[in-house]
């Protein structure tokens, strides 16, 4: 500490006596100026930095990367799979809780109805491209502290903190899988219904996604509802909030509306032929 005081005193003394700092008074940054050693005269001349005899002076160097016989580093790896399989990986474009709150506050999303991909795409501000391997939306924790909406939302991925944030406000969150065809249907339902084909059923998730969607911790749509309700309590205790009783809520029915695992649209079952021009539904007579 005494050492520091001495140096600071010294520095202050210098400041008092030395002239003002100007460009002409400054030394260039270290290693910014290269000393061009010309190949002439005393210091740059004579052997021109190549030493005496040997392969050095005779400029007979080994090729770059050669490691005196062993397998050189640049030849050890025939390829690096940087992007191997990236074109087949599922993507989940993010929606932050902040974005969601803003959409709700600006009446872009109706919270009196359950929210799913269709609702989000119909707001006009969020887009999903199933053809580019975007399998749905994920909720991110940006804006988690200020989230204050009570919603029934269905996304494709959500972290624990996000789930806690939504349940804290008395809402319901669920993660569900939609296969690419179902996604195309949801993103642009009008275009789908113009095909004049009955609604197909949703496919089950692939092998590597099944574990995620059967896990109650992720509020998976294939998980056991009892385990989910238990985990709600556990999460409330973990994050330190009082778990709201949605049974007592006036919007209980809306909040507990859930799609069947084979259902694509709310209120419409697979096998129904929907016509949006006539506003009719045709069903098989079985």
């Amino acid at each position: 500490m005494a050492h520091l005081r001495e140096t600071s005193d010294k520095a202050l003394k210098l400041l008092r006596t030395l002239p003002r700092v100007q460009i002409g008074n400054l030394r260039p940054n270290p290693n910014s100026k290269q000393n061009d050693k010309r190949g002439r005269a005393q210091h740059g001349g004579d052997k021109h930095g190549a030493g005496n005899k040997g392969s050095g002076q005779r400029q007979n160097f080994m090729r770059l990367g050669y490691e005196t016989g062993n397998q050189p580093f640049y030849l050890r790896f025939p390829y690096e799979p940087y992007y191997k399989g990236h074109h087949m990986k599922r993507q989940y474009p993010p929606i932050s809780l902040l974005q969601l709150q803003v959409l709700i506050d600006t009446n872009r999303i109706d919270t009196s109805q359950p929210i799913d991909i269709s609702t989000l795409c119909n707001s006009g501000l969020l887009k999903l491209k199933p053809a580019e391997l975007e399998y749905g939306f994920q909720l991110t924790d940006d804006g988690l502290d200020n989230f204050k909406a009570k919603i029934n939302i269905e996304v494709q991925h959500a972290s624990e903190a996000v789930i806690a944030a939504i349940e804290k406000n008395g809402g319901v969150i669920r993660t569900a899988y939609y296969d690419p065809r179902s996604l195309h249907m949801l993103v642009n339902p009008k275009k789908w219904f113009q095909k004049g084909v009955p609604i197909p059923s949703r496919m089950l998730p692939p092998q590597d996604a099944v574990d995620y969607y059967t896990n109650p911790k992720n509020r998976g749509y294939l998980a056991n509802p009892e385990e989910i309700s238990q985990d709600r309590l556990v999460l409330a205790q973990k994050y330190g909030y009082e778990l709201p009783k949605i049974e007592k809520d006036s919007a209980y029915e809306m909040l507990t509306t859930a799609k069947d695992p084979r259902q694509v649209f709310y209120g419409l079952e697979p096998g129904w032929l929907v016509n949006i021009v006539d506003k009719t539904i045709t069903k098989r007579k079985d």
Partner: protein
Amino acid sequence: MNLRKINAVTRLPGLRTCLPYSKAANAELPASMVNNEPEESYPNAVDRSGLLPQHKNVLLNTLPYEEPHSWIHLTEKYQRQAYGRYGAKSKVNPKICFDSAKDPREQVMQLDTLLKMLEKNRAQKAEEQQKIQDREDDIAKKMEKLQQWKADLHAKIAKREADSAAAIARKERLVEEVRRHFGFKVDTRDERFKEMLEQKEKEDKKKQKEAKRKAKEEKMMARLVEKTSS
């Protein structure tokens, strides 16, 4: 967006056509302004759009082709699409929209597929865990023996060193004895010295053998004593 459920094919009331003026307002307007028959005011209406009839129909949200003009208009796909876009106006029987070959009951929730997938995942995870566990057990077993192995190794080294030291000591002793015997400094490589050395070595070996034999006998005696006593 939420269409209501209906149990039979029925029509919901269509969109109410918005009238430009109310009937009450019409009565108040002067007679010249009342628009009773709008079409007749343009008797020489000529379609100067240059559109083909099918395109005009599309713009007016009606079926483009009343009569099929091409084989495409007779395909199932086209007719389904026509039904989808124009509804009942398309004069298409909605029956063709349904695939009669496929049984919808096949599309029931395939629980067995889901269970199979879960089982496969569980088995894979269990296998990985088992591998890790096996390796850890193996290492644990080896760790138990580690102290013993260490002791064994130290003993072996010590023995080897002791043996070599003993051999050197023995050699020195014999040389000293021979020297003493001769009484004066003799070169070790000398013949006489060598003869004496050999003699001495023999005697030494004999002695060692005797010692070993004695040790063995004593061991045997000890064992016999133990047997008889127990």
